[in-house]
């Protein structure tokens, strides 16, 4: 099974930690990873709940739920951005 590096930023980082390595099924997507993490319950279920504005990036490029995860991929979950 592929292993991906999962990173969290801002409010998600405070609740879920900065990063971890997660095994995902072959061909899994970013959207499926979000569901998988949510399945842990607790803060993961809350912070990654459907309907919450969570943005995602794959290989440090903004991506959608359909993006497919390869072995060693870097995936990030973060809230809407507020720089400037």
């Amino acid at each position: 099974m592929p292993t991906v590096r999962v990173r969290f930023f801002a409010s998600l980082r405070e609740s879920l930690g900065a990063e971890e390595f997660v095994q995902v099924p072959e061909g899994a997507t970013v959207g499926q990873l979000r569901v998988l993490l949510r399945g842990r319950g607790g803060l993961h279920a809350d912070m990654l709940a459907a309907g919450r504005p969570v943005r995602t990036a794959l290989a440090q490029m903004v991506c959608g739920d359909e993006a497919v995860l390869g072995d060693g991929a870097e995936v990030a979950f973060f809230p809407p951005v507020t720089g400037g």
Partner: protein
Amino acid sequence: MTPAPRVRVQTQDFDVSVETSALRDGDLGVGAVASFVGTVRERGNPAGGERVSAMELEHYPGMTERAIEAMLDAAHARFDIRGARVVHRVGRLSPGEQIVLVAVTSAHRGQAFQACEFIMDYLKTQAPFWKKETTPSGAHWVDARVADDEALARWGIEAGNAAPGS
């Protein structure tokens, strides 16, 4: 000598005069320099809200710089400009401190003004930075604003940053 980076994310403050001088250094085709500086307001959003005693800015090292580089490429493609540079601070800042600089050079003022605003509108909704304000009632992550998405939409670009999630 390697050219100065167009994009810098740093904790230390910046000097607008030094940055704009460096940007137009040696380019005698420049006839206009436009710059924008964002600073930490004492009153957060909405205006007239609680007093902010400090602000903490976080970014996504690597992705943030590349995202802004792409914005500068987009600005060069869209406007007749000669140079552009962005400096954005991260870490802990106090009210009154500088947060961000966008500087643009062009032959004539119109393109420099427009490109400067375009880059700033883009950055507000698409560059991975997050602000946390400390106020008397505690520390809060700042919410994304629909008005910022609307500002980018004027350039024909869909932002959707402040949109609800799925």
